[in-house]
C-alpha cells in the first residue's frame, strides 16, 4: 500500500443546482478534491467524471470552469471565498479548440502572457513546454496543420499556461485507437504530476480509461422513485476512492484482476443510473 495523506482542499463543489425553465438539471451536487501528498514525490490529482449521456455532465463541466453560473450553490478553488471565475480552471474541449488564425507559438504565447506579464519569462516558459511535449518543431505551424494528437497536446499546454493548476478535459479518450488511448492516459498523468497542485478532471464515458488514470471517480446519475422512474435533477451518486482500494499509481494497473473487477463494479452501477 502506497503511503499518502490529504492536504488542503483544492476544488469544492457546494450544493450546486441548475434549472432551465423551471426544469431541474442538476440537484445539490457536492464534491471536493483535496491535494494528495506523497512522500518524496510530486503527485497531482486526477478525477474521472463519469455518467450516462444527457445526465448534465456538460452543464456541471461549464459551471466548474466558471463559464456558466449555477442557479444555486457555488464552486470554489484554492480555498478562495468566492465563486470560480472563467480562466481559473483550464478547459480542454473535445475537439481541442485553438485560435486558428494564430500559429502554435502565438497561441501559447497568448495564453502565457495572460498570466505572466514579463514577455521573456512567458516566452521561455512556452519554449520549455513545447520541448517537453515534443512540439518544438511545430511552433511555426497553424493549428490546422497539426495531427489530432499534436493538437490535443497544444490545447493542453495552452490551458495549463493560463489556468491555476486546474484542467477540465472533455472526452479526451473519444474515438482513439489503443495506442493513442495509452498515450493520452500517459499524457494526463504526466501533466498531473508536473506540479503538486495540478488537478485534472476527466469527463468521459470510458470507465476503463478513466479508472486507469484517476485517483478518484465521480459517478453522476439520478435518483429513482419506488417505481423505478428517474427523478429530475442529477447529482454525484457515487464517489470511488481508487487510492483506498490500492488501484492507482501502479504501472500496468489495467491488467490487475482487482482492477478488472472494479471496472465491472462501476459498469454495473453505471447501468442502474
Amino acid at each position, binding site marked *: 500500500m502506497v503511503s499518502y495523506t490529504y492536504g488542503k482542499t483544492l476544488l469544492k463543489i457546494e450544493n450546486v443546482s441548475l434549472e432551465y425553465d423551471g426544469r431541474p438539471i442538476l440537484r445539490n451536487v457536492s464534491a471536493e478534491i483535496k491535494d494528495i501528498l506523497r512522500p518524496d514525490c510530486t503527485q497531482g490529482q486526477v478525477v474521472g467524471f463519469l455518467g450516462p449521456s444527457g445526465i448534465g455532465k456538460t452543464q456541471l463541466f461549464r459551471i466548474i470552469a466558471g463559464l456558466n453560473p449555477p442557479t444555486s450553490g457555488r464552486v470554489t478553488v484554492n480555498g478562495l471565498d468566492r465563486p470560480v471565475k472563467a480562466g481559473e480552471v483550464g478547459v480542454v474541449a473535445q475537439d481541442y479548440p*485553438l485560435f486558428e488564425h494564430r500559429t502554435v507559438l502565438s497561441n501559447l504565447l497568448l495564453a502565457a502572457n495572460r*498570466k505572466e506579464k514579463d514577455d521573456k519569462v512567458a516566452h521561455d516558459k512556452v519554449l520549455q513546454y513545447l520541448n517537453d511535449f515534443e512540439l518544438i518543431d511545430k511552433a511555426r505551424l497553424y493549428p490546422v496543420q497539426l495531427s489530432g494528437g499534436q493538437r490535443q497536446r497544444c490545447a493542453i499546454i495552452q490551458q495549463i499556461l493560463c489556468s491555476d493548476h486546474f484542467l477540465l478535459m472533455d472526452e479526451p479518450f473519444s474515438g482513439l485507437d489503443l495506442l493513442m488511448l495509452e498515450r493520452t492516459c500517459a499524457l494526463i498523468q504526466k501533466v498531473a504530476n508536473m506540479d503538486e497542485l495540478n488537478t485534472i478532471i476527466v469527463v468521459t464515458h470510458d470507465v476503463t480509461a478513466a479508472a486507469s488514470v484517476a485517483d478518484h471517480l465521480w459517478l453522476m446519475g439520478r435518483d429513482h422513485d419506488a417505481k423505478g422512474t428517474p427523478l429530475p435533477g442529477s447529482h454525484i451518486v457515487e464517489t470511488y476512492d481508487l487510492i483506498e482500494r490500492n488501484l492507482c499509481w501502479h504501472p500496468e494497473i489495467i491488467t490487475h484482476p482487482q482492477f478488472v473487477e472494479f471496472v465491472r463494479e462501476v459498469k454495473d452501477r453505471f447501468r442502474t443510473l
Partner: protein
Amino acid sequence: MNEAIELLAPNRVISKKTVRWLVGFQLLMLLSIWIFSPTVFLPKPREVFRALGDLWFEGLGGELITSFYLNIQAIAISACLSLLLAYLTVIPFFRPIVALLSKLRFLSMVGLTFFFTLMATTGHELKLFLLVFSVSVFFVTGMAEVVASIPKEKFDLARTLRMGDWRVVYEVIVLGQADKAFEVLRQNAAMGWMMLTMVEGISRSEGGIGAMLLNQNKHFHLSAVFAIQLTILLLGLGQDYAIGLLRKIFCPYADLTLERK
C-alpha cells in the same frame, strides 16, 4: 486520358498544369465563339479594340480615374462602417439596428436619390452617399452573418484564457474572422463596380466611366459599350486579385485545409 476523365468527375483535384491547359482551352473556345458568332449584335473583337482606342482619345483614362477614385472611396467607407456595425452586433442594443439596415437592401437606389440629394452638397458627394449606402447594406448583411455564425466554443476558449469581454471580441471576431471579412469585402467591392455605373448615371456631373457607358449605350455604339465593359471587367479582376493577395498575406492560414487551393 485519365486526366480527361478526372476533369469530368465530381470533386477531383487536378494538377496546376492541367488547370492552365483547361483555362487556356476554355478561353480559346470563348474567343472563337466571339469571333465567329453570326449575331450582328455582338461586335467583333477587332471592332471592340478599335472602339477602345477611340474611347481612350476621348478621355477614357480620365473617366476611369474618376470612377476608380469614387469606387475606392466608397468601398473604404462602406468597409469601415459595415465592419464596425457588424462587430457591434455583439451588443444586444445594436442588433435590431443592424437587422433593420440589412433589410434596407431591398430598397431601390432610384427611390433614394431625392433623399440623398437633399443631404449632399456636390455631385461627387451624392454619388458617394448612394454608393456607400448600396454597398453597405449588403456588406453589413454578409459580415453580421459571419459574426453570428461563430461557434460558442471559440468564445469559451477566449474566456478560459482570462480574456475580458472586449478582448474576446477583438480576438475571436476581429482577428479570428479577418479572413472571412476579406472575402465579404471582395464580393462587395465587386458589387461596387456594378452599382457604380448606375450611380454615375443618376448624377453625371463628374462624368466617370458609368456616364460614358450610358452615353454610348444611348447611341447604340455597341463596340464602345463592349470596350467599356471589358475595361471595367479588367479593372474588377485586378481589384479582386489585389484583395485576394491581401487576404493571402494577412491570413495565410485561411486556405490551408481547402481541397481546391
